[in-house]
Structures are given as C-alpha cells and as structure tokens.
C-alpha cells in the first residue's frame, strides 16, 4: 500500500538518505531498525510530509503523495507519532484525543457561534469515541489529567491513542517504546497487535528493542548510513552478521566512516 521509491535526502553536506526503496503491504507490521543516525526518522519525516525528499517519490495506494503536507496525508489515512512525545500538554487526555478527528463540525467558527446545538451533538459523538479509546488503552484514571503531567510512557500511549481517533490506514510509529516501562510496553505492544488484527491497521515502526520487534513485526527493514542494509523476517535479520556489525561495529566494515 505504501511504496517508497528511490528516496534520497541531502542536508547541507550530509547525505542522510541515499536511494532507499521498499514497500509495505496492507495489514502488515513492518519494523524499521538501524543504529542511531541511520536515517530512520528522516525517512519517517519524508513519508509523513514533514520534509521533502531531494529525489525519489512516495506512493500511497498508487497515488503520488511525495509533496503532500502532513495534514493532507492525515486525510488520506497516513498518520505518524513522534520520537519525542508530542502531546498537547495543556489539554487533558480526553481533549488530546478529541482534537484528532478531522473536519469536526465545531471547528468552523461560524458554527460555534450560530449552531451551538449541532456542535455539541457532534462533539458528544467524538467524546464517546475518545472514551472508547481511553478504555482500550487502560488510561481511565488519567482521563481528566493534563497531558503534560503524564509520565513519558503514558504520553507515548496517548500518542498511539490519538492515531486511533482517526481510523487510519497506516500508522508510522517512531520509537513508540523508547523509555517506556515493561508494563506499559506490554500494553502498547498488545494494542498494536489488536489494532492490526481487529481493525486492520498497517504499522511501520522504528524500534531499538529487538524483543519488541520480534514479537510484533512481520518483516524488518534494516537501515545503516542512509541505505537499506537488508530486509527479511525478524529472526533472520536479527541473526544477520551485517546487522550485528552495523549495530555493534566490529571495526572491520565500518572503520572508515567519512
């Protein structure tokens, strides 16, 4: 459903991504791994519309989405979360979720002034949906807490919850498990699997935790220095010698980094 075709990205003097191509099938969970500085987040930013690639193209269901803005991609069902949690800190957890649905009736100023009843009615539906998501994520006690007061892990969970409010086709999760406790990580992993199986969400996730990857992903793409090193089933990839080298470095292949 997503086709990334020969993407390159140059920052001034640095080639962050160098001719990356891959495809993501509908209904799959893809892991994107690689050492720090491999270009994973840059790739996410390009796919999600925060950056424009220097060359190459991204397709969603055959449609060229390379230069669409994030909010336009949202309408097409492509969502992302952020490596550093981007919660709306002065909004409550419930409000964080209620913000998400697109084209809400009450987002038109004229309606908020002169069509109050209908705005309230539409907002009730959104609230109901948000409460369901809160139940799903087991955040009930936090419902009316300001999102800024949540723990790091809960913020990540909230970000996952936000994507659920939009009924997306595909979600890009940027290190959703980083800095999250074991218990919360279990909830997050469980939620991802359930969303994938029950609602048919497609996921692409950046992760460093290999257990997490092995448990969730159908396929893993390994990036290093802006290129795809290898891709395949999690077990194969994790035991791949090149991958281990890329992560740990033996001093053989990656000695000369210039």
């Amino acid at each position: 459903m997503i086709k990334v075709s020969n993407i390159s990205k140059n920052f001034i003097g640095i080639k962050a991504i160098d001719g990356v191509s891959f495809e993501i099938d509908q209904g799959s969970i893809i892991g994107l791994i690689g050492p720090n500085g491999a270009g994973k987040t840059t790739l996410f930013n390009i796919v999600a519309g925060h950056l424009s690639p220097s060359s190459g193209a991204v397709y969603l269901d055959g449609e060229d989405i390379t230069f669409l803005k994030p909010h336009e991609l949202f309408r097409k069902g492509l969502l992302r979360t952020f490596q550093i949690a981007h919660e709306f800190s002065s909004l409550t957890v419930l409000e964080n979720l209620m913000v998400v649905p697109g084209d809400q009736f009450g987002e038109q100023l004229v309606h908020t002034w002169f069509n109050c009843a209908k705005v309230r009615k539409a907002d009730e539906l959104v609230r109901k949906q948000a409460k369901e998501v809160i139940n799903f994520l087991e955040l009930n006690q936090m419902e009316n807490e300001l999102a800024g007061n949540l723990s790091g892990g809960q913020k990540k969970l909230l970000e996952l919850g936000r994507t659920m409010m939009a009924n997306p086709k595909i979600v890009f999760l940027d290190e959703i498990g980083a800095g999250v406790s074991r218990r919360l990580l279990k909830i997050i992993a469980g939620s991802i699997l359930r969303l994938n199986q029950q609602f048919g969400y497609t996921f692409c996730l950046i992760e460093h935790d290999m257990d997490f990857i092995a448990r969730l992903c159908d396929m893993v793409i390994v990036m290093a220095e802006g290129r795809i090193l290898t891709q395949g089933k999690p077990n194969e990839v994790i035991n791949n010698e090149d991958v281990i080298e890329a992560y740990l470095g033996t001093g053989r292949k990656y000695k000369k980094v210039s």
Partner: protein
Amino acid sequence: MTKHVGVVYFITSIALLAVGALQSWNIALSIFNLCIISAVMALGLNIQWGYAGLFNVGIMGFTALGALTAVVVSMPKVQRAWVVASNGLILSFLSFIAVVISIVLARRLLPLTSSLRLPVTIGLLIAGYLLIGNFFLPATKQIEAIDPVISGYLGGMGLPILLSWPIAGIVTAVAGWLIGKVSLGLRGDYFAIATLGISDIIIAIIKYEEWLSRGVRNVTGIPRPVPYEIDLLDLSWFVSLTHFLGVTDINNASSIFVKLCYGVLFFVVLAIILWLSERALKSPWGRMMRAIRDNRDAAEAMGKDVKARYLQVFILGCAICGIAGAMLATLEGQFTPTSYIPLRFTFLIWVMVILGGSGNNWGAVLGGVIIWFLWVEVEPVGNWFVSIITASLPKTSFITTHLIAGTSYTRYLLMGIILLSVMRFAPRGLIPER
C-alpha cells in the same frame, strides 16, 4: 474558580467607584471608558497569543489603522480636494491596476523555468512605480496644498461614525490577511520581529501620507455618536432629568451623561466580542487552537491545517484591535498619529494579557481594566502619597522637589514591577486559563 473571578472583578469595580467618590465621577468614567477599549484590545491579543500562541508585537499598527478608518469613514468630504485631484487619483488608480495586471500576465506567459521571469517582473515593477508616481505625486501635492491649516487632505466619506467600527474591523482584517500571508511563514520570535517592523511601517505611512490622514497635523473634530455636552444643556428632557435627580451642577451632569453614553456603547461592543470569543474558545475550534499552540507539529500531523488556522486567528485578532482603534478615535474625537507609540499600544496590551492570564478571555478583560486603571491612577495616587510624606518638610527642600518630579514616571516603574512580579509569582496570570 468562578468565585475567584467574581472576587477579582468586584475589587476592580470597587477601585473604580473609589475614584468616582474621592476624585470625581467624570474622571472615573473616562478611566472606565478607556478601560473598556483596552479590554477589547487585550481580547484581540489574547485571541492571537492566548489561543494560538502567535507572538504579535504589532498591535499598535492595527489600532492606528482602525483609528484611521474611523477618520476616513466619518469625516466630511473635502469637496475642493476631490475636484482638484480626482483626475490624478483616478489615473493613478487605473495605472496601479494596469501594472498589477501586466505583472500577473507576464508571469503567466513566461514559463516557470524561464530566466527572464525575475528581471521582467522587477522591470515592470520599476516602470509601474514610475508610472503611478507620475499621476499620484502631483495629485497628492495638490490635495495637500488646499488650505493646509484646516484641511489639506481628502477628507472622509461623511458616514455615521458608528459605521466606522465594523468597517475598521473589516479594513484591519484585510490588512491582517495581507500581513499574515507574508509573515506567518516565520516562526516564533521571527514572526514577532516581523510584526514589530510592519506596525512601525503602518505608522510611518499614516504619518507621511498627508493627503489621506493629514499626517502629523492630526485630524480633529471627528463626529460623535453621542450628543455634545453643550447641546444637552438646551434639551428640555435632559434639564428635567437633572431636576428629577436633584443634580445642581448641570454642566458636570451633562459631561457625565456623555461619558455614560460612550461607556454603554463601548460596553456593548466588549460584551459582543467577549461572548463571541468565549463561545469560540469553549468549542472544538478553541480546542484545536490550543492544540496548535501546544504543539504545532503534532497538530499538523493530526490533520490540522496549521497555516490556515494561524492566518484565521491572526486576522480575527487584528480585526478586534482595529475595532478598538476606531473606538478610541471616536472617544478622543481626534486622530493623532504621533500618539501611537509601541509602549502605549503594544507593550501595555501585552502586560494586560499577561497579568490577566493569557488564554482566558475574562482574564484578558480584567487585565485590560486593571492595567489601564493603574496607568492613569498611579500619578494622582503618587502625588497624594508624596504630599503626605513631605507634609512636614519645607516646600523647597531637595527631597520634596525630587519626589514630585518623580511621580510622573512612577507608572513606567510600576508596569515593570507588575510584569516581573506576575512572571515570578503568578506566571499564569490572575485568572489562569484553567
């Protein structure tokens, strides 16, 4: 929370009443009127800063534009100026349109890749500038030459002054749209610098385009929406009203009555704007704006068209400041471009919003009232203090003269102290957002 708001408002009204009882009701009412106008401005800024986090330090420009609109809408037409200069003005307007069309056409016709695009555009711009100036400059010279002492400008449209309030809103909204289009691409402090510069440009234009605004020679005698004090004295119903109320000083009564009329008008405007902004804030729209303020990138990723929303909220805030400017010109009955200084019309409004509590409309209104009250009342109160302190000292002693000379500067000191202590002890303001 609501109780707290009530208490703060109660204390503020007591302060105003105290001024009425101790000094005079005339002064209390004129402070009150300006408090209301300040509150409207604070609401405008609050919509930009409190809702959406737009750092606009160009409020002065929009207020002045609103005041200019009041002049252009309400002043009587200067017939002779139109007779002398209409040809030149029409020609320059036509040539302006011709220039715009030719530039647009040229850019359409030349392909995007053509290296001629930029030179041709610049060439057309220069030629257009010369062409327009060729008609425009002599025309404005002629206008400014007509009775420079009393007119020397085009005059206005002679419409009722109250009409100028909504028109000022529309004019500043259009200006806000233009300026927002240009500067909202900048983030945070860069945007702030842009607005600061643009507001000074607006003031400079108003000061030097004398054919339009009389510039530094000021426009006086702007028509009023309320009766003149002197006319009231001849009205039988007013005289009988004062008799009925048992007022002896009828001159004073008429001036209080006029100020009350202004107060009611301003209060109605404030109430409407407050109601609208409160409705908007408490709706999904307000929730979306707060989300954008909290985290722009996340809001974008969650499908909000951040740029369009910024522009919308910027236009709204500017329009409100413009309306306040028109109200101010109406109250003063004159338009003095030199009195528009950033300290009074930008800095002070910021202090109002920060003191009141950014993001909270009731807070912004309260901040507007309190700060304006202090701004005006610090000097008399300071004088009174000084007279008590120095009562036992000889009139010519160094301390007395020094203290008396200092009282008029206390307000600046006080504003700084207020700002610092709010930041330190109540960073979210007197009435926080929640």
